[in-house]
């Protein structure tokens, strides 16, 4: 299952990638991404207080989506530093090129835990367990938006038929599943309803695609759109929200169900739940525009599971 939650960090200020005069963060530079991940991991490992621990004790590996790693090195540094301190373990942040890779690494046990999306979580609910769920506006919930160009005269989502539509990721809840489920509910599928669809592999890219006119409409994470509307108003103001979805479970931090009761996962849970009480943690939350983390029941994601089931049922 791909991880959607890592994309949520996109709105944060970039310290890595500058594209010409555009201060916005890069989302697609794979080479740079790989390089940063490699160098970042090595640097973090070299300066970690746990470097030189007893032989055989490996670092705690925490998975994040590639886009997240690209977006904000400062955030990565803060998060890695905070988790290492709070857990009392060396923590290694791991990123891969795609959502699927992170999900696969988590499922195969290569990662101890990962910040994934609700859609992969419900897809692999039998193997994955919740560690914590971020609190956005004091709730572990968020919405998916269907956005269109700001100057487009349109009354309802039904008029999107025949559009060129931008999705974020085929494994994204807000960036794909919600819209696919909406269409399935009306006995439609993206392939039939839209003239053409494409994936931008980033919520910010969906906004860019719609704002530039490349796509007539797009499915985007409501949390990302809201945060970006404050941080990049020039870009976001060229789009408008056509439809808000129902509230759904915010992308969670998950681990293998078989490791859920381990001490390290317990330390991770504590570190996340108590993040709001730590200065470093507050800084991280401020960057992420989140209120904190909480342990939530798996039923939080029942809405996503229902959408998944509906899409599967209708063959979408």
């Amino acid at each position: 299952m791909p991880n959607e939650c890592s994309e949520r960090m996109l709105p944060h200020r970039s310290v890595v990638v500058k594209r010409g005069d555009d201060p916005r963060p890069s989302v697609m530079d794979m080479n740079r991404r790989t390089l940063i991940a490699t160098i970042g991991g090595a640097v973090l490992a070299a300066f970690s207080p746990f470097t030189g621990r007893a032989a055989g004790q490996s670092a705690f590996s925490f998975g994040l989506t590639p886009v997240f790693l690209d977006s904000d090195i400062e955030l990565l540094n803060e998060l890695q530093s905070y988790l290492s301190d709070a857990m009392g373990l060396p923590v290694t942040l791991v990123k891969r090129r795609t959502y699927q890779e992170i999900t696969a690494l988590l499922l195969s046990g290569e990662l101890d835990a990962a910040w994934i999306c609700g859609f992969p979580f419900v897809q692999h609910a039998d193997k994955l367990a919740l560690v914590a769920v971020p609190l956005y506006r004091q709730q572990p919930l968020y919405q998916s938006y269907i956005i269109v160009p700001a100057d487009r005269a349109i009354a309802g989502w039904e008029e999107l038929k025949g559009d060129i539509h931008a999705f974020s990721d085929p494994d994204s809840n807000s960036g794909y599943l919600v819209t696919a489920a909406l269409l399935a509910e009306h006995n439609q599928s993206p392939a039939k309803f839209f003239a053409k669809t494409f994936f931008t592999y980033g919520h910010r890219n969906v906004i860019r695609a719609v704002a530039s006119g490349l796509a007539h409409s797009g499915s985007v994470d409501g949390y990302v759109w809201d945060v970006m509307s404050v941080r990049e108003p020039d870009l976001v103001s060229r789009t408008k929200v056509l439809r808000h979805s129902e509230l759904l479970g915010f992308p969670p931090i998950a681990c293998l169900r078989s490791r859920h009761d381990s001490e390290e996962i317990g330390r991770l849970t504590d570190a996340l739940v108590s993040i709001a009480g730590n200065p470093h943690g507050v800084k991280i939350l401020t960057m992420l525009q989140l209120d904190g983390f909480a342990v939530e029941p798996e039923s939080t994601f029942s809405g996503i599971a229902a959408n998944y089931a509906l899409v599967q049922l209708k063959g979408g």
Partner: protein
Amino acid sequence: MAGLWRMTSNWPLALKVPMLVAGLTVIVAIAISQVVLSRLAREQEASLRSITSAFMDGVSTAVTPGLQRQDVWETFDSLDRARRQYGAVNALFVVVLQPNGQVLAASEPERFPVTSPLPPHLAGLLGQEGNLVLDEEKGRAWLVRRIEQESFQIGTVLAEIDISDILAVRREVLWTLILVNGGLTAVLGLAGYLLVRRMVRPLSLIQQHLTAAGSGRPELIDEDQIRHAAPEYGDLYRRFNAMIRGQAEREALAAELANQEKLAMLGRLASGMAHEVNNPLGGLMNAVDTLEVHGDRESVRRRTIDLLRRGLAGIQNVVRAALVTYKSAPGPKRLTRADLEDLPFLIQHETGAKQLNLDWQNELAEDVEVDASAVRQIVLNLLLNACAASPERSMITFRATATSSTLDISVADEGPGLPELAYQAVAAGAAGAGAPLGQGLGLWTTSRLAARLNATMSLQSGPSQGATIRLVAPLGEEREEYDVGAAARADRAG
């Protein structure tokens, strides 16, 4: 070319040379401008080709992964990034096409929507693969690059480049060349004009003096100017002054000769008049004696007094004609029929001596607007010449007619005809030139008088037909002022 040469042949040098300099400068300027602009255009095009080729290399490389996967977003993102990276290229749009001709992505997606075909006016450019297609009128250039993988075409990239900046530079250079060359042309033309005017100024001086001489007011060139002139011009000035002095001397001599001729004619006239007066005087004296002796007789007294009256009347006619001819006030006076009628009295001595018949045809009906004094002088001269040339008992014909615009007078005789010298004398008098040496001074004087009236004198003569001299004078026209002695006086003053 020959026509142009003929047309400009009478232009002043001060105009021709600067125009030639300016023309040559313009030709050189055009040639230089052409070379510069052509070279600039080649350099710009080469530079543009190089830059755009690098741009297309970069774009092609960037979009190839997206093309391989037909990935709309990745392709668009690559184009978006490339446009920022290659800002110097000034690409207006870049379109990536799938092999089926549909747009996969474009940097201007609203203009080139995904899956739409390329607009027809751009589709035609696809055949220009690898070439830089320029449209200088629109300030645009287009590049087409085929993207291949393992010898299979996976897509095409079309870019439109704004080359208006380059063209603006070219226009700027063109205007700079025009302004600089135009300025140079103007400066060189003006310099040429001033230089040539300075160079030909001595010729202008000669021209002024020649013009003055031609209008009868010759002036010598000042010695100071001769001293300060260039050697060749100084020599020219001296020769001119020598010519003017020679001319003045000839004029003075001619005037002197004319005066002598006049005096001679006056002598002949006085002699004739004396004769005319003397002839009746004997009879008159006899009549007085008769009156003294037989005055008491009524019939004798009356006959004698009648004889005295007729004799005195004849003398009175002769004296009055002389008075009118030589004592009349100068200046124009309307010619009347009577002005010509008393002329026979002045030549009756000559006609009487040779027993000549005078056929007098004065057909003037009314007054005419012409200088009467000059006409009387001319006619008297012609009549006296005719008398002198006529054999005894021959005929002299005088005829005077007038129209509304001309006075036509002719005097014909049956003499031996006119010598060549007479023609030369008339021509010289009409041209204002000096009298030819030898005979013919009377005719030269007459011709000068005719010239004063703007009249034309024509001569006809043959070995056996005698001679006819005809004068045709315009009426009512202002006579040309002509001062015979001016040249001589100027010469003496200089």
